[in-house]
């Protein structure tokens, strides 16, 4: 048996430190458009991470996650514009309201699995979308709400970039803690063998429900951050294609790896951005890419890298058999 060497904090978290250091100095030399794009990627990454709590860890294919994203965005917009509440109140209440929505939707959804779960979450999110899309007197319908006031400190992109970066890192740490807790492990246990976990006396339903609510909480926060970045919300935040895109990001990056959704979110957002510079038909390119990806890399990008690394590691530690 190979002895796993005990590494120090610095070496074991080397890549994390490099990444954080890179993004901390990134705005110093990059143009505004890149900073804007990077901020957007952070927000979408948070959204994809929250989905992966249900999709990757829980093994439940949610196709309605954009609903909480949309709710978070609208909460921020309505609180700041209609009630003139302070920015901080709006940003703090968005995830709470999203979590309440998640509690209601999750209450009905987590009893189901597989295709039925996908459809029920999809149905609920479309209901929310339809209301946001049509209720002109309250949500301004398909025009969306524009002109969200932003405090002077966040008017420029650079401070907001750092603000979002700090929130993202904090959320990643929180998600990591949740996933490594006994609670997080039992979610994986439920995914692997629901029956056995039930027999061991765990309340499966409660665990999945709580997991759903936590995921909704983070998605709502992401929606709120995006609303502030764009100074606007639109009902299409919650349309089913947004949910499908998030599922795509998770799978593209790899559902089985912690940072998989972040890689997927970054890859898809960058691809969208750069392909749409060259052609109007970026969806055709993206569609073809998805098809190629599913055929060639079923574990996603990070899953593929992890497999390679593991194979190399095994090659190194197992002596060659002649």
């Amino acid at each position, binding site marked *: 048996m190979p002895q796993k060497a005990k590494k120090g904090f610095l070496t074991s978290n080397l890549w994390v430190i490099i990444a954080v250091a890179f993004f901390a100095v990134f705005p110093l030399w990059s143009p505004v458009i890149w900073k804007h794009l990077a901020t957007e990627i952070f927000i979408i990454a948070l959204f994809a991470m929250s989905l992966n709590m249900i999709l990757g860890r829980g093994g439940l294919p949610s196709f309605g996650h954009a609903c909480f994203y949309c709710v978070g965005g609208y909460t921020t917009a309505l609180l700041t514009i209609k009630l003139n509440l302070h920015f901080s109140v709006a940003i703090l209440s968005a995830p709470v309201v999203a979590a309440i929505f998640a509690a209601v939707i999750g209450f*009905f959804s987590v009893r*189901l699995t597989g295709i*039925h779960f996908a459809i029920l979450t999809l*149905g*609920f999110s479309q209901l929310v979308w339809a209301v946001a899309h*049509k209720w002109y007197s309250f949500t301004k319908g398909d025009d969306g709400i524009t002109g969200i006031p932003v405090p002077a400190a966040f008017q420029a992109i650079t401070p907001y970039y750092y603000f979002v970066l700090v929130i993202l890192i904090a959320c990643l740490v929180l998600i990591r803690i949740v996933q490594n807790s006994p609670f997080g492990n039992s979610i994986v246990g439920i995914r692997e063998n629901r029956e056995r976990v039930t027999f061991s006396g765990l309340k499966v339903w409660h665990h999945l429900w709580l997991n759903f609510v936590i995921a909704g909480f983070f998605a709502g926060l992401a929606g709120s951050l995006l609303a502030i970045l764009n100074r606007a919300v639109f009902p299409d935040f919650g349309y089913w294609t947004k949910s499908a895109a998030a599922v795509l990001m998770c799978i593209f990056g790899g559902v089985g790896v912690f940072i998989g959704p972040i890689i997927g979110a970054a890859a898809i957002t960058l691809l969208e951005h750069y392909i749409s510079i060259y052609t109007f038909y970026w*969806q055709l390119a993206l569609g073809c890419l998805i098809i190629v990806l599913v055929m060639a890399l079923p574990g996603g990008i990070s899953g593929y890298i992890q497999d390679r690394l593991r194979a190399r590691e095994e090659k190194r530690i197992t002596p060659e058999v002649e």
Partner: protein
Amino acid sequence: MTGWVLMSQFLSGLTTAMIYFLIAAGLTLILGVLKIMNFAQGGIYMLGAYTCYTFIKAFGGTNSGFWLTLIIAPVAVAAFFCFLEVIFMRRFYEKVGLYMLLLTYGILIATYDMARLIWGWIIKTAPMPPMFQRPVAIWGHPFPLYNVFLIFMGFFMFFLIWFVIRRTAWGKTMRAAADDREMTAALGINVPLVFTSVFGLGAWIAAMGGALVAPMGGMAADMGIDAGIVAFIVVVIAGLGSLPGALLAAFICGEVQAFGILVLPEFAIAFMYLVLVIVLIVRPWGLFGKPITIK
């Protein structure tokens, strides 16, 4: 007067219901036999409409051209999707369902841009065949003849599909393959071929729906994305894989929308989703589906 208002809402709801049924019927067939959720179904419907437009134009907008189009266009679209099934989808039936979802989603967004690439960004309208360019009188009020034809076609297609599945040898192999793939293969039936044919039939039905819709109004590339979601709602309300259920669910959705406009015009689309959510909470397996055990 109000009697006629209700009647005309009912008829327009029925027309919508028939369109929903045609999109959903192909989906429910594919879901029932192949056990995959085909996101591309809306894309097939959209391509059916555009192909119909091209053929009607090519035949000069005549009556006989229209009938010929109804025969050729859906078959052409179905053939294209059979080709895709053989190349891409065939090898994924045994793997995790999530990949299949992504694959069909990829095909959906690719067809979306493909249509814009071929037919352009401007909304197109296929000419109405001359024989349908007049209204019929119902209770002394004019009603478009084409809508009557569409309602008739909806029922006709229902019986045709039902006949194929229940009364032909092809339908029998389909049902056998849906029940037990391995056993059917062991009996010497070419299961991959059966699957391709089922996918083709499902695509043909959706493309027929698109072709029938083409002369009714403008078509845009994103009609597939909206139609796809409606098809899902219908299939889920019906119960996965149930054909009579799909007809009933399409009827409910069409009528709820038509009468919803009278009651609360703002929320007409929301009503359909509300029906979906209520059905899923009360009967998660749908109106006609088999109960699933919930742990």
